[in-house]
């Protein structure tokens, strides 16, 4: 039986190929870069003024289990080489918001690594020269009233941190996935459930023509533990729930029993949801729990404070000219801090030491006492902010842009959660509303950032409770999500609780790829939110009962 619950001993095995010595890798990258800087020129065009090489070297293990038994077991070992070339000069080069470098899977053998970067650099350089020409052609007709530099000057950094050799305790991780997934054996009403355990050993080399030399862990890939479950209500509505366990490495994971309790919580929620009544569309006051609040700030504020968006007139640029002006209620402040490693003992997913451009991570105040103070800056300058603040992030194949890391929302005059709930009831009674809502947790959200689209964002709560105005009684409901526009919804926040909590394990996707982030926020009272029905997705539930609950 596969349900041997735990490996008796932690036995780490070797994991993939032996890592190539760092000196050989730097040697190959540097040799190719210096040759390119000295001799790369085409026709009358000179060499690039800036080159950056990134190389990610990864070992990955993933096991997926369902109902106590492994479903897939997958190990891989791979590298991604990335090169970026800038042609022109800092004041005007080939890059714009759609710029991407070039990448390819790569070997680590130093000779073939040189060959790989030789071809990548050639491709990046030719792309840079033609990109520069195209951009210049565009400027021939386009009016630019306030020219802004294309690349900020930053000091070079050097740090070489050797990682411990890759070692994998495959038996333990597989047993963990199987053990946690076995929880669902006790829930016949849940039709699909998976526990995914993903472990990474990954390092990043970064070499730039400015002299930056970095070898660091690739913090873009924390280990992960995800639980997801799906079922159908009796009326056929699809219901899902998930759990992202905050951990950076399995060495730091909470005790198994605690994890099992959390998984059981997901299963119980989903079973309760099956029996919950369907909520019609509604507008009413609501309390957002810390996770929901965090995701709301991520969507409604965070993405719109990404520096490069203020450069591009196609972007909504909601906050471009509001620096020093109030954009939130005065009791709220927001910072983004990639240097913060943990919160109340839990590791944060958005932490790193150097961003994808090699700039040291820095804490940045975005909003202080409701006043807009700053943006999430990469090396793309914007008006009033000529330098990076260490938020240039990207996945392994993309060009870095200003992104969130650990987004922290704090409130002055926070009250206990019970007081917040009392105020919700008070608001409902005052406004004569029959009910309000309590939104708990979030499975993510979306929001458009360009001007062509209406700036309507959506955030999907994991659970929605309807709160009766008279009795305060909570009823779990299903079938709705939160929608709204950023300025309106953020300014309807009227109070916050003192229950700041961490929401972790989120991957945030944008032009520069997927990066891990976290949010820390308190519960918030919002004077009015809008809930919209989820798209219809009903199918016939299974005809026969689950085999384990069928006497035949």
């Amino acid at each position, binding site marked *: 039986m596969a349900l041997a619950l735990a490996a008796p001993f932690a036995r780490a095995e070797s994991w993939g190929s032996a890592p190539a010595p760092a000196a050989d890798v730097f040697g190959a990258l540097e040799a190719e870069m210096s040759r390119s800087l000295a001799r790369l020129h085409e026709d009358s065009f000179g060499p690039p003024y800036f080159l950056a090489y990134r190389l990610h070297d990864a070992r990955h293990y993933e096991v997926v289990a369902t109902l106590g*038994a492994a479903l897939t077991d997958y*190990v891989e*070992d791979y590298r991604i080489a990335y090169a970026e070339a800038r042609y022109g000069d800092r004041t005007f080069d080939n890059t714009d918001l759609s710029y991407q470098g070039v990448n390819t899977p790569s070997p680590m*053998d130093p*000779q073939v690594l040189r060959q790989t970067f030789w071809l990548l650099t050639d491709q990046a350089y030719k792309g840079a020269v033609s990109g520069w020409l195209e951009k210049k052609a565009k400027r021939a007709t386009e009016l630019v009233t306030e020219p802004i530099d294309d690349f900020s000057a930053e000091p070079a950094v050097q740090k070489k941190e050797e990682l411990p050799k890759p070692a994998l305790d495959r038996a333990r991780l597989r047993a963990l996935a199987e053990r946690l997934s076995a929880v669902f054996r006790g829930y016949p009403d849940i039709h699909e459930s998976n526990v995914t355990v*993903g472990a990474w050993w990954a390092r990043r080399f970064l070499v730039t023509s400015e002299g930056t030399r970095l070898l660091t862990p690739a913090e873009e890939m924390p280990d992960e533990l995800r639980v997801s479950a799906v079922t159908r209500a009796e009326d056929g509505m699809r219901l899902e729930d998930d759990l992202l366990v905050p951990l950076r490495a399995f060495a730091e994971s909470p005790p198994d029993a605690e994890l099992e309790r959390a998984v059981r919580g997901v299963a119980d929620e989903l079973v309760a949801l099956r029996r919950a009544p369907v909520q019609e569309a509604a507008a009413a006051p609501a309390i957002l729990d810390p996770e929901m609040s965090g995701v709301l700030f991520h969507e409604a504020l965070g993405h719109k404070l990404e520096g490069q968006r203020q450069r591009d007139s196609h972007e909504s640029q909601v906050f471009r000219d509001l620096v020093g002006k109030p954009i939130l209620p005065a009791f709220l402040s927001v910072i983004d801090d990639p240097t913060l490693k943990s919160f109340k003992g839990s590791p944060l997913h958005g932490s790193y030491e150097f961003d994808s451009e090699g700039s040291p991570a820095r804490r940045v105040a975005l909003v202080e006492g409701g006043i807009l103070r700053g943006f999430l800056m990469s090396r793309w300058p914007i008006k009033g902010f000529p330098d990076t603040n260490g938020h240039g992030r990207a996945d392994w194949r993309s060009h870095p842009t200003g992104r969130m890391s650990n987004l922290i929302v704090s409130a002055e005059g926070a009250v206990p959660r019970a007081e917040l709930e009392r105020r919700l009831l008070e608001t409902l009674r005052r406004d004569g509303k029959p009910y309000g809502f309590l939104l708990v947790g979030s499975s993510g959200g979306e929001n458009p950032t360009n001007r062509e689209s209406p700036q309507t964002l959506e955030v999907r709560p994991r659970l929605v409770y309807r709160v009766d105005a008279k009795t305060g009684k909570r009823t779990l409901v299903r079938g709705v999500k939160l929608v709204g526009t950023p300025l309106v919804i953020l300014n309807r926040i009227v109070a916050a609780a003192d229950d700041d909590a961490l929401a972790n394990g989120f991957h945030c996707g944008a032009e520069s790829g*997927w990066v891990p982030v976290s949010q820390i926020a308190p519960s918030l009272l919002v004077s009015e939110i809008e809930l919209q029905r989820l798209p219809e997705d009903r199918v016939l539930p299974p*005809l026969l009962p689950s085999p384990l609950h069928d006497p035949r």
Partner: protein
Amino acid sequence: MIPASLAIVLLALPAVAAPGPADEPALERAIAAELGRAKSSLREEGYPPIYFAQLTVWDLEDWDQWSDLAAPRAESTMRQRIALADVRVGGPALDNHPVSPRGDYLGTPVSIADDEFALRHALWRILDGAYKTATADFLRKQAVLVSRGRADYDADDLSAEPATASTAAWSPRAWSVDRLRRLDDALSDPLRAAPWVLHAESHVGLRRLRTRLRGTSGLAIDKTDDWARIEIEAVALSSDGLRESVSRDWHAREPEALPSEAELGRAGRELVDDLAELRVAATTSPFSAPALLDASVAGGLVYALGQSLSGEEQRNPGGAQTFRGRLGDRIISETLTLVDDPIAASFRGRPLFGRYEFDDQGVPARRVTLIEKGLLRGFLLSRYAVKGFAHSNGHARAPLGQIPLGVPGNLFLTSSEPHSRDALVALLREECRRQGKPYGLWIRRLRGWSQQQSGGQGSIRLLAEVRLVSAATGRVERVRDLDLVGTPLVMAESVMAAGDDPEIADTDAVAPSSIVSPSLLLTEAELQRSETKPEKAPVLPPPPRDVPEAGAVPARAEEPALVEVDRYRLAARFDAIAALDAEGLLAWRQTRTAEGLVIDAKVGGATGERAREALRRVAAAVAAVARGGVRRAILFPLDSAGAYRARYDDGWPDSGPR
């Protein structure tokens, strides 16, 4: 969400794989219980019940390694178990089976552990989904029949076959991943030593696959199909900036069938020579001419013909139904006979890739004559019957996670009048002279093919090495950037002679298959330009590798201000690149034209004087390498418009004076 995962890799495979079927009683119990429950009780009120159901469970363990120039880029290992239910409602005469073959992936991953709880739960869900889809498909199929009526070629949807059972504990074969890695190195090392090779991307893979077929009719078949692959594609730029590639692959079902390191080392060196020759080969405009296809290219053609003889194709209303109702008709030369024999294990001592004992519907494999002395005699049949044939002939085969259909196992094309190679070449020249064509085609070493439609219909494009054979002198000359195109049936009909040199070609286009065919001489075949676009050579020379070869790719000097394209008429083709490495020569190509072989050369210099000097050097270099005299004709004058066009236009002055 997680970023799309990239490439991949690996650990050594466990020496002993997972336990075999006999050791997995829980899987057997789960299948029996859920198939039983589905057959007896899975039914929706007002809809038909299940009359037949088959579960296919594939257990696979994959190891793969991808390399470039003999250095590993990625490696992965994966274990998965995929299940698929073929659920039928209605009855054998008419059920929900699709009228046009479906190529979509329908598999679902299920537990790889022998855990009855998890497995039953998964099979319950799979059968539930399959039953609902089956009833809906059945009703839709009936709806079409109601409005259109039954086609005269329609037959039963599921032929009656005796239940078969053949199960056994699995005994893993002793594959060595280290050996596969060494084979990859042996193959790739020679390519790494050639500095002008841009990429030599190789893949070695090992799949260990066990397939279980279980059905409501008592069907119980276990199959084991190991499969090792070694593949390589090497790329270099030609002198005129086109991306040229050569490739090879090897397949083995058991470790003993793998090629040796020495054999692969030789193959690697041959690839280097092949690519070197290809880079400087002449180009020519597409034309049609009599063609000699070697056994590998003939194999591609025979396979396409075999696919169009699939039973499913004869009943596919969306397909060409090329051979429907033509039983007994002559369809190719009466000297040719085509047989499919999945039972054949080897040919002249070499193992066959397409062999099997039971097909994917559990029907015993059978030898079938498809074409006898040019006359159509049969089809590749699954249990989806064809008019005139009440039963399957054991050719139902399913790619992983798909519904099976009739496809080739081991195809054998034989000729009653085999000719020697020399005789075929003589026939080729004679046919050219008869048709008044200056050159015949010799198409060799198939490296791939593509087809417009699936199922052997539509035109086929064969990517292979193309050589011209002079009708007058018999001289053979390599050309490049051309592919062979045509429709399989027309090409097969135009076969006028076959060789005495049958060889095996392997493919896994749908399922593993081997084709044994001799060389074939066609009265006419057509060439088409390859889909290659010119690209600029890298600005810098390649970084040094262990074995530098001076001057193979010249470094770009100062960018010239003036460029012209010159045409030189040659008495003979030349092969050496380095010999033409004159300062000021920017790019060149050889072309076979109606009036003979020519070199077009782009030559330039910073000033008019420098450009003229360069021209003199290039003319001297061409004269030195192409013995027999050189005649020069200037196509573009040294004016700025001409220079610009020559320098920056994608290609070459094809529309210029010839």
